[in-house]
Each structure stands twice: as C-alpha cells, then as structure tokens.
C-alpha cells in the first residue's frame, strides 16, 4: 500500500504501546489491523515507502504519525525539498524523540510554524542609546510630544472628546485631519512660551522681506482659486434661493388662480340657475354687492372717456387704498388705449376665447343694481355725463338715438 497523502514526505510510522508492555524504540514494526479486530504484525521497510492507515482505509486504529519537530520545519523552508530520501529526520531520531516523550500518540499533523517577526527590543534600545545625541539642547531640536488640543466643537456638541490617536477612524478624512490640526495647535501653544523665553521670534517683522517657500506667483494662483470657489458658492446659493422663491411664488399663483376659477364657477352656476328659473332669489349677488359698492364708483369713474375730473371725483371713497395699488386705474386705461403705439387692429375679434371670457361681466352693471341709487346721488352735480357712464348701458339703437339727440 502506498501512501497517498499531501504531506506524505513527512509521515513516518511510529511505535505505540498497544500491548501495555514497554516497547523498546528499537523494535519498530508496523501493526496492521483489520476489520474483524484481528491483527498481524509484520516488519516494515522503514525507508521511502511508508504506509498510511487511517480511518479512511477502514482500519480501526490510526497509526501514529510523527509530529513535526523543528527539524522538519527547516525542511519546509528549504523549498524544493520534496524527496524523502534527503529528509534529515531519520527514524533513529524519531525513535529517540519518542523515547524522550516529545511525540505523543494520536494522529499528528504537520503544521507550519508561524512566521517569526523580528522585534529585537533590546537591540532597538541599544541602538537608540548609541544614536541619541544627548548633547543637543532643546533649542536645536525643537521637538514636542503632545496630545491634540481640546476640540471645542465636539465639546460644545457634547460628544466625547477622543484624545488618543488610536480612537480616530483613519477613513474619516475630516476627523483625521482635524486631529492632526489640533495636535499641531497644541504643539504651538506649548512651544510659544518656551521659545519666548529663549528669545526666538515666531513672527517676522513687517519689513522683513525674504524668500518664501512658495513663490508669489503660486500664491496668486491660490488666491484666485479661492476667490473663484467663493464666487461659485455664492452663485449656487443665489440660484437655490431663487428656485425656492419661484417655487413658492408659483404655488401662491396657482392657488390664487384656482380660487378665482372656483369663485367664477360658483357665480356662473348660480347665474345659470337663476336664468333657467331654478331659483328665484338673487342671493348670490349679495356678496358681489358689498364689494362692488366700494369699488363701483371708482370703476364707474375710471372708464369715462377722457374725463379727468370724473376720475378724481370717483376716487374719493377709498383714494388712499387705490393709490397704493400700483398704477392708477386711469393710468392703466390710458396705457391700454394709447400705450405702445396705441390701439392695435384685431384686438376685438369674436374668437372662442373672447366669447368664453366673461371677465368683462359686471353683475351690477348688467342688472343695474346699486348703480342707479348710488350714482344718481353722488354724481348728481356732474350732469348728464355720469348718467351716461354709470347707469346701465343702453342698446345700440337706443344709444344711436341718444347720440343723435345730444
């Protein structure tokens, strides 16, 4: 039987004390066991062939294999040492080792010894002692050993102040760099008084011009880069704010439009209902009236054709409020009529949109509500003019007749 094992070159057959009687190391023989618990002893060739009996070969008892001693490790390290004949560990030595008790019974495996890392502490200390220049005063070396300074930010946030360098996470760039920065700070804070005592300055005088480590050109480049960075940041901030504002403004606008549309819809539906005769009350106009009363006189006055005095007269009820609301209504009307080159042709077409557009619909004017009483009283001294503009607008033929008459 041949051994088929990965570390075959290192296996040996050893002896074991099966019988209880002391087997002398000289009598090496392999004991072959079979399944029916019988055994036979036979001498073996203790040479390059060796037999491996293990549980996989359906044997009851494993054969003792020799544990690797230090000699064999050296074999491992000498790469290319594959031939068993050159193996240094002879059987005689094995026998001796077993006798001394270095080998234990049982299945032993070859193990690689862990690689020795050199750490010659004594040597290091000796070297340091030789190398150190003890004659140098501190002023020549300027070395400090210090922990980093207190981290104000972390303390204010209540975080644990990790002072030791083992605590920091080397992958967290910001934390690491801040740690180095604080260490440098602490060194400076400690060294300043010492340097002052020894009369060494750390600040150079204003007129001291000397060559710097980085040229002026380099510093200019750096400065420019910093400025551009700053500008970019500001721009992005502005853009962000603008976007936010626009979003908000859009929201508000949408809401206002929706509200207007809802009101218009409600008004139109109530008007339709009245027209169709479903309701006979004109309650829906109530809401309109209250607002219209304040606004109507002003609105009635403004559209008067070129009537300057009437415009001012019409404004009296809430003049200040009207003045606040941007350009005058009169101004607006004039702009609309004469501004940007005057009236354009084609502004009055009966398109679908213009037909559907009921923004020019004034309920009060249409029904003549509140206009007759208010207008008649207020604009009395004005004469015929206001009567013409404030009251309900007559039909085309009626107007023609009126025109002819006046």
């Amino acid at each position, binding site marked *: 039987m041949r051994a088929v094992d990965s570390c075959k070159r290192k296996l040996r057959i050893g002896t074991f004390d099966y019988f209880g009687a002391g087997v002398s190391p000289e009598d090496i023989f392999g004991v072959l066991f079979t399944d029916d618990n019988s055994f036979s002893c036979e001498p073996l060739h203790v040479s390059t062939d060796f037999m491996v009996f293990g549980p996989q070969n359906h044997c009851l008892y494993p054969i003792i294999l020799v544990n690797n001693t230090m000699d064999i490790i050296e074999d491992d390290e000498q790469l290319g040492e594959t031939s068993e004949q050159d193996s240094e560990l002879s059987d005689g030595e094995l026998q001796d080792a077993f006798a001394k008790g270095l080998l234990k019974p049982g299945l032993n495996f070859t193990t690689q010894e862990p690689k020795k890392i050199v750490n010659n502490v004594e*040597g290091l200390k000796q070297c340091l002692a030789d190398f150190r220049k003890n004659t140098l005063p501190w002023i020549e070396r300027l*070395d400090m*050993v210090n922990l980093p300074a207190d981290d104000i930010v972390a303390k204010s946030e209540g975080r644990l102040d990790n002072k*030791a360098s083992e605590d920091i996470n080397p992958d967290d760039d910001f934390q690491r760099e801040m740690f*180095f920065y604080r260490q*440098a700070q602490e060194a400076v804070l400690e060294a300043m008084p010492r340097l002052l005592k020894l*009369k060494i300055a*750390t600040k150079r005088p204003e007129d001291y011009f000397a060559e710097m*480590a980085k040229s002026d050109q380099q510093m200019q480049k750096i400065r420019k880069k910093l400025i551009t960075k700053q500008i970019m940041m500001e721009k992005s901030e502005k853009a962000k704010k603008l976007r936010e504002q626009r979003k908000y403004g859009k929201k508000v606008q949408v809401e206002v439009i929706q509200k207007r549309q809802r009101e218009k819809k409600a008004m139109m539906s109530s008007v339709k209902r009245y027209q169709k005769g*479903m309701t006979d009350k004109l309650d829906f106009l109530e809401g309109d009236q209250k607002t219209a009363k304040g606004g109507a006189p002003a609105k009635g006055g403004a559209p008067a054709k070129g009537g300057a005095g009437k415009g001012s007269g019409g404004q009296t009820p809430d003049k200040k409020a009207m003045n606040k609301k941007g350009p005058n209504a009169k101004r607006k009307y004039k702009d609309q009529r004469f501004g940007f080159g005057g009236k354009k042709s084609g502004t009055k077409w009966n398109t679908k949109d213009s037909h559907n557009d009921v923004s020019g619909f004034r309920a009060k004017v249409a029904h003549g509500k509140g206009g007759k009483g208010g207008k008649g009283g207020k604009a009395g001294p004005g004469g015929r003019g206001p009567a013409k503009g404030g009251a309900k607008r007559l039909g085309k033929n009626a107007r023609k007749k009126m025109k002819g008459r006046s």
Partner: protein
Amino acid sequence: MSALKRKRGGKGPGGKAKKVKLVENGNKPQTTEMEQNKEITVPPPVDITTWTNWRNKERVLVFSSRGINFRTRHLMQDLRTMMPHTKADTKMDRKDKLFVINEVCEIKNCNKCLFFEAKKKQDLYMWVANVPHGPSAKFLVQNVHTLAELKMTGNCLKGSRPLLSFDPQFDTEPHYALLKELFIQTFSTPQYHPRSQPFVDHVFTFTITDNRIWFRNYQIIEEDASMVEIGPRFVLNLIKIFQGSFGGPTLFENPHFESPNTHRRVIRMATASRLREKQMVKELQKLKRTENKEAVTRDVTDDVFATPAEERPVHIELEAPAAKVVKKNKHKAFKRQRKQNR
C-alpha cells in the same frame, strides 16, 4: 544671482534697507546702519561670532533612484525647500547596491540620508538613514501631496526652522522611539545654519494612526495657534528597521505591513474568485439542464378541482333563446325636476 559681485554682507545694487537679522545681543544693527550710509564696503550686519554658533552639523542628502514619477520629484524638491540643511545628488543607478549610498554620502559630507526608491513606476519607498553607522529605516510612501497643490494655501519662509510635533504613541514602543529620534535629527534645521531663517513659523506633525505615520506641515499664522496647511504631506508605512545604514541586521519588522504587490494580488484574486464562482454556478445550471429528467406521468394537481357531482347529459340548443323584453321606465322624472325637488 546678480552679475555684480557682492561682498558678503554688503549692499546690493538696490541699496535699500536689507533684512535685519535678529541677533542675540541686539545692539549691533544700529551702528551698522549708520556705517552703511557712509562707506561703500560695509561690515556684515550680523555679528560674525554668531556664525560660529552653528554647531549642530547635520547635513541630509536627498536623492532618488531612477524611474521616479513627477510627484516624487516634486516631493523631493519640496523637502529641499523646506529643509535648508539638505543636499541633492544625481539619480542612482539601479545596478548599484544600496551600500553604495554610504559612499555617496561620505563624498558629499552628509551624515543623514533620505533616499527615494521607485519600483514598477508605481510604488515609492523611502529610506531614512543615519549614514556612517547608525540605524536606518525603510518606508512605503503613500498619499503624496506636494507644495504646489492649490489646496495647500499656507506659505512660510524658505528655510525657516520647523517645530516638530510627535504623537505620544512615539514614546510607548521602542521602535517608535528610535524612529522619533531619527526624524528629529533628520528634519530639524540646525540653529544658525547659514541658509536658515531665524524665525520659527511652521510645524511638522508626525502622527501614528492605522499603523502608519502621517506627516503634515502647517504654517503658524497667529500666536494663538491658528494654522493653515503648507504641504507637502505624505503617509509612511514602516517596513523594516536595520541596525546599520542601508544594511545590517534587522532590528524590527512591521507585522502590519502588506507589500503593495500582495495588496494588488489580493484584490485581483478577489475579483477572480468572484468570477470563478459565477462561472461555477453557470456550469452547475447547465448540468442541471442537460440532466435526464424523469418524466412525470401523473400530475399531482389533477384532482384539485375534482368536485364530486354527477354528470349532466350534454344538451345542445338548436333554437336561439327568446329575446328579453326591455321595458323603458317612462315614469322617471326629468332631470331638472329631480334637481328642484332635491
């Protein structure tokens, strides 16, 4: 360099007030200013006895092997700018063994050496050595950022003396203590060095994190320790410490060090193993597909919907079914009326 020969300490062609060096005994500058106005040849503005105070004769040789890239070259230049007690040398041939460096240093009369070695045009190794007898250490340099980077906004006097700051961890282990001593002697500018400036306006920090040594250089702006980074910056990963200069018995080996080749290999193997796994899975699937599958004769779900009802005879309709009479509801009120009554 001016074409005019300038006497040491004499006036330049500009004739303006030269830099006034701060002197230990500060009474000298006053007299020299007056003398400058009268005479052409002027005595040096600094007391000459102070020049002999330069006792700490440290000289560092900074050079490299062939095959370095631009970043390493700039780093070397930056180190020479920062440390006025350095000397440069030409690139060393790769054929020469490392102990040749000792001879080069001797020729240049240097007693420390910073040697940069580039391998595979990718990895940068740095040797810090005390040349004649002393210890030397080899590092792997990573994360190099030079002075010229625009993010390093600080500036300092060329050749001003640095303050060195070390992490307390440097005092705990003997190998770190040795490294600390080596760094102090190499990086600190000697006082009264002819090319140095008398002010202390920047700090070198050495910190140990993640089993590596991090180097930073900060400018001191204010006395209250507000700082800006000048650069350069790099990270040193210790490989070995030797007792001799560029040789000798190993005193310390870093157990946490993983060579860059191993690192790349690990990454490659990881990707390779992932690919291999995918392939294996695919092959297994193929195998399964081509396997002889046993034909299932009886469907297990056949009798799920079997309802035990008796069969009805099949009835075929020959006539069409009668049409359904749809009656319109004439009694529904009109829509308008319905609305009104609502």
